[in-house]
């Protein structure tokens, strides 16, 4: 169950402009599920930072993140052996579905899709990057997916184009039980459109600034429609994963 855990950093690498940390904590790893996130204390920042779980193996969890501001800068500066305090695993992740799924990741939205792909009966992946130097984790996706399509904005790796383009192509080729996506809002929206066109259920992982991370403070609002009623649900508890058709995209 979600709780506070001290994790030791066991390995650290950088790739694709991101930092990967492997965190050791058996109790935490034991209850982590695909699409959930960790709320990480970064030095003495007033707020924790939400970072998705990229992978889980035995006693360890992997997170991959980009340095954006003071919090991620602190986290990226931690060395192997350091202890980081984590609240988690949090949130409502990607559903477990029967059958073949399509995972779509864009940029820093790529890492969380790895555990999701691994958990599926069968999976294909579309991974989008700005440019070749930002490409990451494609090997690990190839190890667990059947088809892996890499897209880039500038054509320097994989095919030039958007993730939704790649998704539309695969949706024509195969029959999927679901599409699961994480990335920039515009990517999620276009992937959701492609899935809808193909008549496949789509789940998307949303981002919003967070306070408590556990559903109590109501700051991480995301406008959704549920049972015909429009209103705010909360990324940290109701999400981060929502059914794409429930998300109000133009809010």
């Amino acid at each position: 169950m979600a709780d506070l855990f001290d994790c030791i950093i066991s390995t650290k690498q950088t790739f694709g402009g991101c930092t990967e940390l492997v965190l050791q904590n058996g109790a935490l790893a034991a209850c982590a599920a695909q699409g959930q996130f960790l709320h990480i204390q970064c030095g003495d920042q007033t707020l924790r930072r939400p970072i998705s779980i990229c992978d889980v193996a035995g006693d360890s969890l992997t997170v991959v993140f980009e340095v954006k501001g003071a919090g991620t800068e602190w986290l990226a500066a931690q060395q192997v052996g350091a202890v980081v305090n984590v609240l988690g695993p949090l949130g409502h992740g990607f559903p477990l579905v029967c059958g073949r799924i399509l995972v779509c990741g864009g940029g820093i939205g790529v890492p969380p899709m790895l555990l999701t792909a691994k958990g599926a009966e069968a999976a294909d992946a579309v991974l989008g990057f700005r440019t070749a130097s930002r490409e990451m984790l494609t090997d690990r996706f190839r190890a667990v997916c059947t088809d892996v399509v890499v897209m880039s904005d500038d054509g320097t790796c994989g095919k030039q184009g958007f993730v939704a383009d790649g998704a539309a192509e695969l949706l024509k080729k195969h029959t999927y039980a679901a599409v699961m996506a994480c990335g920039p809002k515009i990517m999620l929206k276009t992937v959701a459109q492609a899935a809808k066109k193909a008549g496949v259920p789509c789940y998307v992982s949303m981002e919003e600034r967070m306070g408590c991370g556990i559903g109590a403070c109501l700051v991480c609002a995301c406008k959704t429609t549920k049972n015909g009623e429009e209103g705010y649900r909360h990324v940290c508890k109701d999400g981060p994963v929502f059914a794409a058709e429930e998300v109000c995209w133009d809010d």
Partner: protein
Amino acid sequence: MTDLRVNLAGVMLKNPIVVASGTFGFGHEFADYYDLSELGAICAKGLTVAKKDGNPPPRIAETPSGILNSVGLQNPGVDYFCAHEMPYLKQSGTKIIANISGNTLDEFTELAEKVSAAGVDLIEVNISCPNVKCGGLAWGTQPESAAAATAAVKKAATVPVIVKLSPNVTDITAIARAVEAAGADAVSLINTILGMRIDVNTRRPVLRNNMGGLSGPAVLPVAVRMIYQVACAVKIPILGMGGVASGADAAELMLAGATAVAVGTALFQNPYAPIHVRDELQAYLEQHNIPAASALTGAVMPY
């Protein structure tokens, strides 16, 4: 054995540590972490007559040693609270404070009646929310309107009434005296200080609502000052809050004049914060051979 109990406007709390309105939801989320009966009291999320969606996101921004929020009183409405949240809260083993916000005096009356009937132990009247267009802060910046809201609630309430004061005023003692005269059984302070952050890359305010309320350790010295000023100005007890993150912080607010202390923003770094604050306060009392927490209230020795 240190006696942690404190008497807040006639209601005995088993310890002085309360959780602040809006930072603890209706308690469910924290029950996964500890037994809610460990708390002195739970102050529930602010309620309005009708369900309220609150402001669009982003609703939170970080500041040095603090945060800004602009939730805007998102809540399911008082009827939902009474029907669906109170049954759970009532059996939590601690005292329940309903936090109410009206747009009109009639709304305050309605809210007070309904939460009283639902069995809350205390009512906190929010006349200080900086994040809503009507109501909220508008009530709390003038002695007359603050007194009017207090009187409306008092008339309808069957339990003690706490009035929550805004720090965004020239003279908080004038407001405190006005609500005391209007019958308030206690005051709570401070609500958040109005603030703003701008993202220098996008030139956009960080909050979609442009401004929001500042809370967290950054405001602690303002809370201490205002509690001290109000304690000198009125006789009714004070529920103190603003930036409390440790037992020493709680003791500081109590020395300044608070009978009990609420923990808010600190919950975002650590859901166990109120439990730690309580334990640290107890250790402080033991270390200083103070037999009862209540002995701290107002015990500062000013120069």
